[in-house]
């Protein structure tokens, strides 16, 4: 990666290079060697560990046998976001973590092999699935992230008509806008979107449900509705100085880097990212790649409590990011022209664990420090989409829609919810792969509901 720690300027070319995919693809020989190393276990634990139940030994065996199309079909059949997941899944916690070879040598590089097979399908412009025979049943989906796309793909294969309403200009949700391009280039979710569109799914972009069309209209006009709208923007910190020019929303910030326009050049800038989740890491690594001179992640707790995946943390360390643990932002300082000049943090200390087993932190009286920064990026989670949820009149708990865990049905008949919008309060998982699985399961539930009804009415 090109950085400018010595010189104070970074060129657009360097920025572009910094934002190309960081992890190299497997070469053919590596892929085939690795595929042959797979033991092809029976009732393999990796399958169980994959939230979408990809038949991993089967797709790897197909790489070994040279049946590349079969391999891609095996992956994408189980996981409509299979190409994205090959890059963004925390594999060491999922499939690779379960590989039996962890006990004997090193686990199979399942993620990389999955990428190898799906890359092949992308490069060879393969048509992997066909739409089913028209059932004349029409389903609306709010949101085209991995959850919505997965549901749409399955419904279309059953022959149902599907219309997705998407607020943004491009489909794909956070895969398109939210996960940094050096981990997930935009072309990958774009291919997954195309796979879904090719099955006849209509995606109405630039269309906000609740503004351009109402929730009520959807529930009236469609045989079923799936809410897959994810989560909202980063919430406010509630501290002074938040309105300054140089205070940014991490998700918007990453979205800017995925637009490919490179308007932002952080040469010589000092950046503080508030938070320690995956979004915070992504905002921090983006800052480095945009030429920032120094990037700190500021977190009120410690390394132990940080929610970013281990591989993300590792990635941040490799990018030379500094970590300010036990530091709670108290005030953002600015000058008269509205620019950020510093971030005042309060030092914290750890206290005995509370009932939830998590150690509490407490401000150390009078221990403050001003960090010399000129950009503050907030990455302290995402807001819930309460107005949308309420418009659908479904039961929720603080913006987490309550669902039936097998059918993903909400409290309202014919309305289903999947993905990040149901994540929280011990329910769901904020991952692309779980969004994809929920999409499949909701689609299956809707299909069986609709076909049962069809039988009854016939």
């Amino acid at each position, binding site marked *: 990666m090109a950085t400018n720690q010595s010189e104070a300027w970074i060129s657009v070319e360097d920025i572009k290079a910094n934002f190309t995919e960081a992890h190299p693809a497997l*070469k*053919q*020989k590596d892929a085939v060697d690795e595929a*042959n*190393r797979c033991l*092809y276990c*029976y009732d393999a634990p990796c399958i169980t560990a994959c939230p979408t139940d990809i038949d991993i030994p*089967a797709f790897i*065996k*197909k790489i*070994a*046998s*040279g*049946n590349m*199309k*079969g391999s891609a*079909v095996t992956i994408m059949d189980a996981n409509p976001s299979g190409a994205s997941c090959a890059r963004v899944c925390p594999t060491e916690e999922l499939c690779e973590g379960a590989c039996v070879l962890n006990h004997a040598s090193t686990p199979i590089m399942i993620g990389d092999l999955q990428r190898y097979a799906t890359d092949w399908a992308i490069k060879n412009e393969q048509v992997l699935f066909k739409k089913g025979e028209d059932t004349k049943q029409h389903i609306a989906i709010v949101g085209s992230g991995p959850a919505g796309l997965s549901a749409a793909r399955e419904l279309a294969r059953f022959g149902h008509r599907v219309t997705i309403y998407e607020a943004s200009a491009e489909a794909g949700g956070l895969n398109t806008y939210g996960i940094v391009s050096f981990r997930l280039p935009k072309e990958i979710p774009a291919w997954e979107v195309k796979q879904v569109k090719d099955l006849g799914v209509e995606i109405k972009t630039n269309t906000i449900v609740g503004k351009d069309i109402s929730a009520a209209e959807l529930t009236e006009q469609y045989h079923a509705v799936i809410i897959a709208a994810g989560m909202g923007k980063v919430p406010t910190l509630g501290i002074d100085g938040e309105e300054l020019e140089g205070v940014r929303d991490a998700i918007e910030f990453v979205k800017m880097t995925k637009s490919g326009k490179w308007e932002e050049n952080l040469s010589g800038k000092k950046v503080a990212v508030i938070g320690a989740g995956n979004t915070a890491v992504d905002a921090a690594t983006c800052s480095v790649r945009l030429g920032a001179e120094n990037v700190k992640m500021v977190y009120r707790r410690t390394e132990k409590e940080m929610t970013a995946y281990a591989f993300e943390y590792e990635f941040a360390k490799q990018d030379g990011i500094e970590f300010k643990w036990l530091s709670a932002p108290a005030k953002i300082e600015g000058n008269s022209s509205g620019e950020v000049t510093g971030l005042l943090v309060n030092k914290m200390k750890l206290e005995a664990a509370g009932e939830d087993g998590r150690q509490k932190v407490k401000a150390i009286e009078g221990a403050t420090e001003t960090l010399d920064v000129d950009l503050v990026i907030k990455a302290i989670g995402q807001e819930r989409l309460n107005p949308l949820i309420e418009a659908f009149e479904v039961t929720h708990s603080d913006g987490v829609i309550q669902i039936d865990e097998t059918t993903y049905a909400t409290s309202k008949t014919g309305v289903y919810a999947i993905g990040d919008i149901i994540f929280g309060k011990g329910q769901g998982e904020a991952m692309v792969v779980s969004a994809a699985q929920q999409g499949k399961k909701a689609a299956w539930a809707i299909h069986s509901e609709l076909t049962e009804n069809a039988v009854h009415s016939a």
Partner: protein
Amino acid sequence: MANLETSLAGIRSPNPFWLASAPPTNSGYQVQRAFEAGWGGAVWKTLGDPILNVSSRFAATSFNGQAVAGFNNIELITDRPLEVNLREIEETKIKYPNHAIIASLMVEPNQEKWHEIVKMVEAVGVDGLELNFGCPHGMAERGMGAASGQVPELVKQQTAWVKEVAQTPVIVKLTPNITDITFTAKAAVEGGADAVSMINTINSLAGVDLDSWNTVPNVAGKGAHGGYCGPAVKPIALNMVAECARRPDINVPISGMGGVSSWKEAAEFMLMGASNVQVCTAAMHHGFRIVEDMIDGLNNYLDEKQIGSVAELVGKTVPKYSDWGELDLNYRVVAQIDTETCINCNKCHIACEDTSHQCIDMLKDEQGNDFLQVREDDCVGCNLCSIVCPVDGAIEMVEAPRKTGEEPMTWNERQSLVSMMGVK
């Protein structure tokens, strides 16, 4: 979706993948599981005169970390009562009417014995018979299996006895433990065989334990030769199939086996003249589920090649297989090294230098970087360097201008010309 249906001498099956007569087809339970997994047919574990087995039975050779590169066994034919096998065959055939069930048979070289067993298995509804003239151990000592399969007259005679009473197609399974398999294949055809299958296992001893000095496998400290199969034997089997396929007088369909582990080997055997394939070791290594990729992979291959039916593959490479004397002496390929891709392991250099024609030079460029270069004029096009090269695409064998004559000339042509030119 290509059509994978196949017919071997009139025995139809939904796809060309049959389980070979071996432990995977030992019982109705297993064969039914196999059909559920997708196998198109099964040749039942050989039925015949009662035998007893020993423990242990198998051994495998692994090669550089690849388990089961070859597989060795000293197991005999079925040790279950005939009556039980027959009942299970009948039950399986009723449950799976569209799958092929073949009874593999082996009895003493005696007309009545053959007549008796053929009638019994046909009575329970088998689709065909496979005469096991191939088992290389145990049975051979009693004049059955390979012992009779190595004598063309016995092959012909026994086939003829079977044909006297058989109502279903008769496949003769040949042993590879013979110098030229076309002799016994021909004998089978003369005896009236409707098809031949090959190969059974090759005489083998898997190894010796360097601590105990016991053979591998051993039975209470003693060993005996077994039969070898699995990936290692594929080239031997493929040649035997090809030699039979290109002989006009061996004009019966061939069921090919020996090292078929994926759709790829299956396609190779079929291109080389087999109408279908049989599999044993790969199923024993991975379970019946491997047939899923065999079917899927073959289907995708045919789609990609825009071939509508797998039957169209059969024999397509046979006309390209010939005698050495018919090869063009003037054709030339040479090795070319792509220095961009080359990782400079120098394996090609030393292979050529020590064991071929000394034509790969180790050089340095202007910057002092090492690179390898083939002196194409001296290269005989043996392929060795490209075989030992560990990197895909670093060494390519490319067609080179002919230097000993612009047009083809075979050895046979040359010899007839030269023989006409005796000293005058």
